[in-house]
């Protein structure tokens, strides 16, 4: 019964990330009292975004801190908290590993690649060199209903970045 399809979807890397969840914190309180979602602390520009998958109620909050400006800006801080399925939690963990310390330009490029792969309905063979652990989500693209799960933290990351434009 544990079909190979299931093993393809839930690759060991995904299950491992889901369990260890790099960068996850228990709670990320709002950045400010007045519901603003950006702030600058010690020269680091912070932004935060909360995303919910309305199908299943999964939630992820991502906080990013940038130093520098424009495309050269660096992702200096990254933290997330959330509750959800193994795919969304693993994806957040991989996101953490992928974007921490990269430039905004690099992380956005990665985001595009990841999204493209997920939307491909299994037609794009991921480049593991470039995507790293994120390549393990290639199997998800054959499950359109789960693409949202994998994208959830990335969408939160994207939304947070957008606020710092």
């Amino acid at each position, binding site marked *: 019964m544990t*079909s190979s399809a299931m093993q393809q979807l*839930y690759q060991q890397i995904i299950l491992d990330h889901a369990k260890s969840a790099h960068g996850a914190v228990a709670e990320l309180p709002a950045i400010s009292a007045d519901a603003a979602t950006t702030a600058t602390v010690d020269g680091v520009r912070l932004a935060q975004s909360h995303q919910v998958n309305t199908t*299943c109620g999964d939630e992820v909050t991502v906080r990013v801190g940038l130093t520098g400006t424009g495309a050269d800006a660096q992702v200096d801080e990254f933290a997330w908290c959330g509750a959800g399925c193994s795919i969304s*939690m693993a994806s957040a963990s991989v996101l953490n590993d992928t974007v921490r310390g990269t430039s905004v330009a690099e992380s956005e490029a990665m985001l595009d690649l990841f999204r493209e792969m997920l939307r491909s309905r299994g037609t794009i063979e991921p480049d593991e060199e470039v995507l790293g652990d994120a390549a393990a989500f290639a199997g998800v693209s054959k499950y359109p209903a*789960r693409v949202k799960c994998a994208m959830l933290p990335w969408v939160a990351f994207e939304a947070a970045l957008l606020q710092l434009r």
Partner: protein
Amino acid sequence: MSTDEVLRIRNDFPVLHQLVNGHPLAYLDSGATSQNPISVMEAEQEYYEQRNAAVHRGAHTLAFAATEVFEAARATVAAFVGARENEIVWTSNATEGVNLVAYSFSNASLGLGDAASARFRLSAGDEIVVTEMEHHSNLIPWQQLALRTGATLRFIPVLPDGTLDLTAAADILNPRTRLLAVTHASNVVGTINPIDDLVALAHAVDALVFLDACQSAPHLALDLAALDVDFAVFSGHKMLGPTGIGVLYGKADLLADMPPFLTGGSMITTVDMEKAEFLAPPQRFEAGTQRISQAIALASAVDYLSHTGMGRIRAREAELGSRLVEGVSAIPGVRLLGPGVGVERIGLAAVDVAGVHAHDVGQFLDEAGIAVRVGHHCAQPLHKKLGVTASTRASTYLYTTDDEVDQFLAVLAEVAPFFGVAR
């Protein structure tokens, strides 16, 4: 109901005979929405092929024929739940029925309606009581009514075993209570609430009782007059009918005094630019062109259920419910939400697989062709109370086989090992 009979019934449901991910579909999500037998689809098609027309306002042959079948549908559904025809109001779904009453009460509270409507006025000091077990549809409309009128929302707690705290209920219901909204059967824990007791408590303090019959009307012989509830709602799509049709039941004398909710065509007597006068119930609450073919199809669904026999359906689902509960209780690491083996229930069980998110459980089952519902099932407060955010729910109906339940149990047992969860 014999295995043969269940198999015969299944022949009436084309959707059940398909492969999902290479496996025969095991549809265990009837609690969310049920499937339609051929006869229901045919009833609807026959309507469109033979007599589709605007009802109640046409004077030609087709319009008259359409009006006749539309009103006959009301009579069929009324008889099915122990109501009179003028106590049955068509809605789009159960949710709209809850909102209808909540908005009619707020309209009364704003002084709309006639003198008799004053009995439905709510203001600060009045209390509306719901339970922690409610589906969002029987909770949020009352929250909003409280916000609109200044009334206070109170709630009957759920005990750790997933049943209502009746001792607390007796305290909470008091002379300030104007309405008690409660579900007949829970869509999460599957139990049937003691409506008789709650009605007695509520009526003793002159509060009205609003029953969410979404999970009872499809699964047991419902007699609203005998239950003596004041209002009730249920949805067609959960009882072999199409989407887009629901029913609000209200005692005739209550409906007669309530101000309208939706206004527009077909619910008025006279209209001028400044004001309108309204028809008697049920038309008063049925604005605009109605869900004609859906009402007719729902009546056909009710005929199908009546023909099979609600008592027999109830008994069969009790069997399936026990099979589910016994089965899941035997799987290590799987927790059944709510009361366990031996407690009367509908054919429904929600579980939590320790360490595996419900969405992953659902995916794993789906891969094996087993369709279940995962998430909070529109009952976040209850899930919170039971200490989980989501669960996996299997729910049955008259077309469910023992084999399907067994398959579900077998695959469910494989979930924790697959996800590498230590037991």
